[in-house]
């Protein structure tokens, strides 16, 4: 499952970022931060190529020796970044897609909260629970 999940605002600052284990949190911050370069490049490429706008999944952003970084962008330019352990070969593209879709639905629920100010950090118990379920280690 995912070792780091992040929600990035339209202006490319984090609304939510969570990783496990927490002692390597800074490393994942660096990883997600640098992956935004690839996200921006892919978004602009999509815009240029007039690709189907309904395709939100960006695919594998870049692989490293230990992790794989996947991206997802909504219609309102909010980005989701998910970091998966490279050794987890059981995860396939379809599973990554469904995880992103579930994340998107949960984010939509957060935005529907009338007391949530767009642009603030996400502090939602339901969202936390959903993220925790995606980060649980299945061995």
């Amino acid at each position, binding site marked *: 499952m995912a070792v780091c999940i992040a929600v990035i605002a339209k*202006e490319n*600052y984090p609304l939510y970022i969570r990783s496990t284990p927490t002692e390597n949190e800074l490393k994942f911050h660096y990883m997600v*931060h*640098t992956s935004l*370069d690839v996200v921006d*490049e892919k978004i602009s*490429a999509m815009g240029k190529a007039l690709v189907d706008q309904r395709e939100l999944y960006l695919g594998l952003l*870049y692989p490293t020796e230990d992790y794989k970084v996947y991206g997802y962008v909504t219609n309102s330019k909010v980005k989701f970044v998910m970091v998966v352990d490279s050794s987890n070969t059981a995860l396939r593209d379809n599973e990554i897609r469904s995880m992103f879709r579930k994340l998107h639905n949960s984010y939509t629920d957060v935005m529907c909260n009338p007391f949530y100010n767009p642009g603030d950090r996400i502090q939602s118990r339901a969202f936390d629970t959903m993220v925790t379920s995606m980060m649980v280690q299945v061995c």
Partner: protein
Amino acid sequence: MSVPDYMQCAEDHQTLLVVVQAVGIVSEENFFRIYKRICSVSQLSVRDSQRALFIRYRHHYPPENNEWGDFQTHRKVVGLITITDCFSPKDWPQTFEKFHVQKEIYGSTLYDSRLFVFGLQGDVAEQPRPDVAFYPNYDDCDSVEKRIEDFIESLFIVLESKRLDRATDKSGDKIPLLCVPFEKKDFVGLDTDSRHYKKRCQGRMRKHVGDLCLQAGMLQDALVHYHMSVELLRSVNDFLWLGAALEGLCSASVIYHYPGGTGGKTGARRLPGNSLPSEAANRHRPGALTTNGINPDTSTEIGRAKNCLSPEDIIDKYKEAISYYSKYKNAGVIELEACVKAVRVLAIQKRGMEASEFLQNAVYINLRQLSEEEKIQRYSILSELYELIGFHRKSAFFKRVAAMQCVAPSIAEPGWRACYKLLLETLPGYSLSLDPKDFNKGTHRGWAAVQMRLLHELVYASRRMGNPALSVRHLSFLLQTMLDFLSDQEKKDVTQSLENYTAKCPGTMEPITLPDGLTLPPVPFTKLPIVRCVKLLSLPTSLRPQKVKSLLGQSMSTKSPFIYSPIIAHNRGEERNKKIDFQWVQGDVCEVQLMVYNPMPFELRVENMGLLTSGVEFESLPAALSLPAESGLYPVTLVGVPQTTGMITVNGYHTTVFGVFSDCLLDNLPGLKTSGSTVEVIPALPRLQISTSLPRSAHSLQPSAGDEIATNVSVQLFNGETQQLAITLENIGLEPLEQLEVTSKLLTTKEKLYGDFLSWKLEETLAQFPLQPGKVATFTINIKAKLDFSCQENLLQDLSDDGISVSGFPLSSPFRQVVRPRVESRPTNPSEGSKTGDLGHVKTLEAILNFKYSGGPGHVEGYYRNLSLGLHVEVEPSVFFTRVSTLPATSTRQCHLLLDVFNSTEHELTVCARNNSELVLHASECQRMAIQVDKFNFESVPESPGEKGHFANLKQLEEERQEARGLEISSKLDIRWRIPSLKRSGEASVEGLLNQLILEHLQLAPLQWDVLVDGQPCDCEVAAACQVGDPVRLEVRLTNRSPRSVGPFALTVVPFQDHQNGVHNYDLHDVISFVGSSTFYLDTVQPSGQSACLGALLFLYTGDFFLNIRFHEDCKSKELPPSWFCLPSVHVRALEAQA
């Protein structure tokens, strides 16, 4: 091949590599001067041809890279230029020998070489040598460029010979096998006659010829050769050389598609064919290879559409080549450089995504035994390439890795300066700016965790650099901008570190300029503490300046004929936002109140907190605060003294927190509430301090005007008592006190006050003015408490009513009057009186004394100050007049005033009136006091005619008259009381006690009646004597003092005898007879007139007789008050006649 060249680009494949080196001892300055001039000749058009040559110069080139020259000919050193100093002919052979030794290093690949000798003159320098050039010095060598061009042409001739030689397809000869250094041992013992071997030899040679064609400027020929080579090498699976052929194909295509180059170097590359034929002809030299006949490039049009790769194919071929290189560990450098070239091409093509894939792959290319400097260079190049393709975050990441590499533990001498420089360059990639103004936009937009880490690294690096000011600056920036993202423990750690640093190097508000020109702006601590509200306070009420109303001001206010104008209102509204309506005074302590908040989880010590102002000189008095942990809004008052006059603006405040000095401007504070920051400072005014002889009062007066009372004094008086208040005026300011006015205002009270409550004389005090600073003046205020002395209902004592006093009863006989004592004493029940006296009879009087004073420069400007003194007087009752009545006296011009006096104090009290004895009253005792007074002539009280006009109605006029009469009566009576035990005394007034009836009796009647017997005025006290048988003359005289005429009157004289037992005998016809009529008639008497009537009596027997004179009742008499007809009684004693 262990040293990669990260600056390579695809165009380098067509360049000739020339190494420029120094031989012997040559200063770096001189060497690089010549080196720059040599490098300027980087492009040359070959004479008599349409081709161009490109030269690449290096001043350092590892020889092991030279060994790969057959694999890629652009790696081969084909030219060598050496520079040397030689100043003595005897050193020349040794210098020339060194030149030869240097040539041996690259001897296997060199086409030609040159030696530049500086400083040598003489016979040796004049001998012409083709490979040596002599110059007197480094400043006199104008022909360096020309010689370099000649040198390059000789290189070209050799290159062309080699190309033509290898391009010839000699089927009969044996083609040698070209190898890379690590391949030689693999082919030992291999069969050289096999078909497979021959194909390999042909493929490699084709690739080699392609490189030579590319360097010689024959692009299309190179493409043809590369394609043939690819086919040959692919068939025999020669992957290393196949990759090289593919890379060459890519380079040639890049050169074709992007003539401007992909390296981004300065100076545009000139296209082939730009040179003029005549220019090329000038370079003809004797002895050139004219026998071969240099021909122009004739393959321009051949195979254009077929051989050249498209831009998309270039990338595909690069990928293929790199994958082939990756099969050989020894070719890591080749692979890495190929990635770099591909990235540069992709950057031109704006394909950042694919470029990042190449770079991602390059990160994992393992090179053996890289030195620390090489690692740093590698990461820096990665960072630059990521920046080139627009990946700013990746660029920042790898730059940071390079910075960390500078201070790796394996380095003996860490390069903290380089590390710091690289870290500074990473800031834009992490959305960081060291200007705190960029973070004042309310919310934080960035990656806080990453940014904090970076700031910590900057702090650490600058500290290791030995620059504590930088450490303090960066740590302050971290604390100021990342405060919301720090945990409680992190806040403590950061502040502890900051205090440790600032103990040696305090933080300042000056910009820090780094050696490379970058400037770090100051970081004010606007969040330590957070200021929510800034409010300028007015001076205390007693020190508040006020403007004297002047005619000029009034005329100015009426300058405009319009009362209302929206423009003026708008300006006034805008002005109110900035300028405050009160004023400060020069030289006075002024206050500004701030509401601050401590966001730290511990106690925050703020030192040196003062105001920042502009407009006037301002001496700020710094304050030191200690704010509790996470306090709510905490009020802080900052004080200062303006030293000059004008408009002062409070721009902000300064603090010292954790050793960092901060200037915080109000304009830069978000969410700050301020009620204006500009105040007018008026010239200096004196300061007055008032002290009194009375004790300070706990009662604070609450005036309706809203003024603040500076001092409150309290005093306790008995009703009617007078006490003096000594007031001391001290000038505690720095200006002389020149003007003083004292006014008093009595607060509203239900009590009616008689006489002046407060009175003073200021002339003696003002004579001492102007009062210099530090001087004291005094004056006295008289406090007179004189309230109503009338009784309450429950104090009404029914003393024995004698029935003869004027309470609406007619007059009694004089006999009873004589029998009655004049003073009657009868004590009442003490307990009953004491109870009634304690039922809250204390009354309160309150007044405000206003001291309006001015002086100094402020006085010249028309300003003054107002000081208020609150006076609280508690009035205890002294005596009460429970009953007032009058009793006729023996004389018509006098009467007795009967006062029932009640002592309501707890002490023995004596009461006395003028011409009267003392009356001793014990506590709560009531006694009757009889005072014989002359009747008052109220008509003598002057009434000004103008005064009448001020009264609205007659009722008010009558009240005023009544008060005036009461005052006159009271002053004449002069009733005083005294308490011997307390040594206190006062007066008692009957004002307000006398009703209309009593006043009429006390008033001298306007009609003056006199009765004369034998010409002598009669009085009750003395009986008139007459003799029996003789007629007695009786005269009744009337003097009119009223303002109108009276009369006529008819009077009847009735004689009678009084037997003293209550029986009157009126039957005296046989004893007394009248001579004439018994009725007297008076005509009308004019004002101030006088009238009299005469009669006579004849007594026939001896005895005491009384005459009762009565008036006939008629219409006119009823109009006059009965008290006007007060005739004295006549007492006549008939005596025996003398015989």
